[in-house]
């Protein structure tokens, strides 16, 4: 009984290391394939379209509503202290530092990450990847790397758009609906948001989350068991693991950047 438990623990630990090792090797192989992919920008543009442009509607609508909710909730709290002029700061800091990168990453994992994993998993199941290898085409170079670059270009852009649209949403709720003074909304924001400390750090988060989300999605698809069940498992795991990774990393990055 005890031996069995310890054996299970040992098995679990070893398989954890094995998965981490496989994921790292996969990451290095993708990185090695990145330079040669830049010689075929058409592939990358096509991926930016399907990963980035098609996620735009989701990102813009969500950003606007998240900003509006921040504006409403912030107003309700601030008005008790007679500090509703600070609404702009509250909305901007929250979006730029935290909600922009994190919510974009979570939406991205659900919208684009799952699609990537399913697509590559199906390619593997229908033996498209192995046929490429037969024809001496490296699937990492032809299939994985363009998606990797496309994702890493798209997601930081989506983060910026989400943040900007969110601030406009906060302005709509605060200034448009609740009657906060427009001048102090923007001027307090400008006085308290720093380009390097806040905006640039938020963008760094966006880039880090992009790498993590795209890596998880591509790896899960590439390593999927080639069955219908395997693809569904890979898709689910992509979203779940991305969410854990993003939220965990966000805590670490916030601790490093803002404390």
């Amino acid at each position, binding site marked *: 009984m005890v031996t069995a438990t310890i054996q299970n623990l040992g098995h679990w630990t070893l398989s954890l290391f094995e998965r981490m090792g496989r994921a790292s090797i996969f990451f290095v192989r993708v990185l090695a394939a990145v330079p040669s992919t830049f010689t075929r920008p058409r592939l990358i543009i096509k991926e*930016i379209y399907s990963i980035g442009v098609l996620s735009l509607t989701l990102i813009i609508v969500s950003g606007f509503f998240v900003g509006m909710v921040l504006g409403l909730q912030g107003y309700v709290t601030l008005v008790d202290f007679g500090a509703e002029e600070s609404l702009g700061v509250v909305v901007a800091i929250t979006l*730029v530092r935290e909600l922009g990168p994190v919510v974009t990453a979570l939406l991205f994992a659900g919208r684009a990450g799952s699609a990537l994993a399913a697509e590559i998993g199906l390619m593997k199941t229908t033996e498209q990847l192995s046929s490429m290898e037969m024809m001496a085409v490296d699937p990492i170079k032809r299939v994985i790397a363009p998606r990797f670059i496309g994702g890493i270009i798209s997601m*930081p852009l989506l983060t910026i*758009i989400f943040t900007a649209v969110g601030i406009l949403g906060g302005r709509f709720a605060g200034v448009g609906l609740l009657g906060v003074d427009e001048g102090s909304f923007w001027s307090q924001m400008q006085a308290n948001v720093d380009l390097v400390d806040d905006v640039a750090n938020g963008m760094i988060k966006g880039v880090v989350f992009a790498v993590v989300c795209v890596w998880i999605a591509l790896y899960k698809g590439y390593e999927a068991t080639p069955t219908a069940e395997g693809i569904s498992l890979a898709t689910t795991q992509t979203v779940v693991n991305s969410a854990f990774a993003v939220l965990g990393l966000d805590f670490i990055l916030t601790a490093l950047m803002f404390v």
Partner: protein
Amino acid sequence: MTTRFIEIMVGLFVVLGILALFMLAMKVSNLSGLTRSDSYEISAYFENVGGLKVRSPVTVAGVRVGQVTGIVYNSDRYEAQVSMRIGVMHDYFPIDTTASIYTAGLLGEQYVALEPGAEDDVLKTGDTIEFTQSALVLEEIIGKIVVKLTSG
């Protein structure tokens, strides 16, 4: 779905991203702040700066003319040295100008308020404002009131 359409959409996407970044830089943060070329720096010594922070506003008659660029403790004078950057279009401060630290609203942020004096000479880069009034520290005032109440 032609290649042309995809490329146009990706181009629009990138333009949208750059516009959003531009908005974050110019409208949300204060990139459009004062640069070295269109401003001059003066400093003032305060006994207590309270909650004044770097980048706090510097105002004259309530109008923002510059910002605080540095706060350090000067061990020779046992006072805090506050450096301020003022826009060149506001270069008419007499040398007997007074600098005070006030609070915007009851709980608002603190700022430096300049009150022009009457001398003919004006402050230039590197000059120091001699007349200053420190920030009001709530605990000190409460302390004074308590002393007054108990002594009387």
